[in-house]
Each structure stands twice: as C-alpha cells, then as structure tokens.
C-alpha cells in the first residue's frame, strides 16, 4: 500500500532564515505530487504540483519554491522566510490522471517568529 511521509513534523524558524521541507512517497511510481498550505481560518491552498521529475508548476506567486529531484521525493524551500509563511504545510500524492483522489501526508506545522 502507498504511504506518504513528511518531515519535520514541527518547525519554529526566525524570519529571514531558510526553509527545507521534505516529502516522500512509498508504494507507487510516477505519482503526481502536491504542496498545500493551510493557514488559520482559511482553506487549503495549492502552492505547487509536479507531474514528473524536474517538472514543477507554481499556483501562487510567493517566496517559496519546490523541487522534485527523484520520482517520489518533493521538497519545499525558501531562501528567506516571512512571518506570513507560518502555517500547516501538507504534501499530497495522486495517480497520474487528472482529478484523481489526492492523499495527504501528516503535515509540517511551521511557525515563523
């Protein structure tokens, strides 16, 4: 069966510091991968998605970036964190066809101070 991992689970970072969040998927090949952010009082917002190695699409302009160095690895990064980057970051995977069910990882709670 498929499993999705994220780490770290919780992170407290100062403003201006860099960020690297990692997501890996097991038990499937060629998944679509997604990064979402969930801010307090707001719905889940898609940040990036990837349909293959090295292929990244950005949904929202911001100071974050994403990379997919391997088929089942998805990384969310920032060079300099802002206060507004605080939130709950969720990685998800789905099959290759569009509109398939997306399955979420356990999430990373990020607090920028």
């Amino acid at each position: 069966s498929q499993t999705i991992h994220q780490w770290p689970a919780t992170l407290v970072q100062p403003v201006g510091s860099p960020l690297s969040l990692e997501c890996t998927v097991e038990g499937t090949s060629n998944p679509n991968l997604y990064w979402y952010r969930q801010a307090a009082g707001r719905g889940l917002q898609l940040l990036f998605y990837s349909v293959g190695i090295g292929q990244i699409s950005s949904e929202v302009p911001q100071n974050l970036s994403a990379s997919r160095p391997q088929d089942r690895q998805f990384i969310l990064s920032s060079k300099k964190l802002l206060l507004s980057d605080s939130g709950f970051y969720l990685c998800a995977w789905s099959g290759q066809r569009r509109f398939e069910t997306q399955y979420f990882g356990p999430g990373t709670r990020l607090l920028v101070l």
Partner: protein
Amino acid sequence: EDKVVQSPLSLVVHEGDTVTLNCSYEVTNFRSLLWYKQEKKAPTFLFMLTSSGIEKKSGRLSSILDKKELFSILNITATQTGDSAVYLCAVGGPNSGYALNFGKGTSLLVTP
C-alpha cells in the same frame, strides 16, 4: 473565480445525533467533488462523487451530489465522539488544472 462554500462553519451535537454538512460550489466544468475528514493532522479521504443522485456510503457516513443545484451533503448518523473533526469539501474541474478547490471546512464537535 471558482468557489466552494461549506456550511455551517461549526456545529456542536450530542452523541447519537444525526448531522448534515453542506457544500455548495461554483466551478467551471465540474469533474468531481471530494470529502475529507481532518482531525489533528492530515485530511483523510472519505468520498469522491462524480455523478448526481448516487449515494456513497461508508458505515454511518453517506454523501450525495446534486449537479443541477451544485451542492453536496455529507450525513453522519448516530454520531460518536470520534467523529469530532473538521470536514473538508473539495472540487476539481478542468479550469482548476490539477488543483482541488477546498472549502474552509465545517468543524464538528460531538459531545458525550
């Protein structure tokens, strides 16, 4: 702009009650509607609905879609404290690309 609106935003019920959660949407070229349950961490998948009028059922949970009136409901019968969670509705359609458009969720608290 695509919209997904859930109601109520929050709900408190007693164990054993039946609840109905609502999700209305305005999505160009609708393809699917999904329900998720979110407790402390990751949303877990409940149902995917693509056709009107066909009820999906899993234990005490059921859901149905009305594509003419553009809404879905999620029913939970004989609620238990373990049903306490945020229930998220998400809609996908061609114009949203690969994104799922999520509503803000309904926070359900089931008291003993």
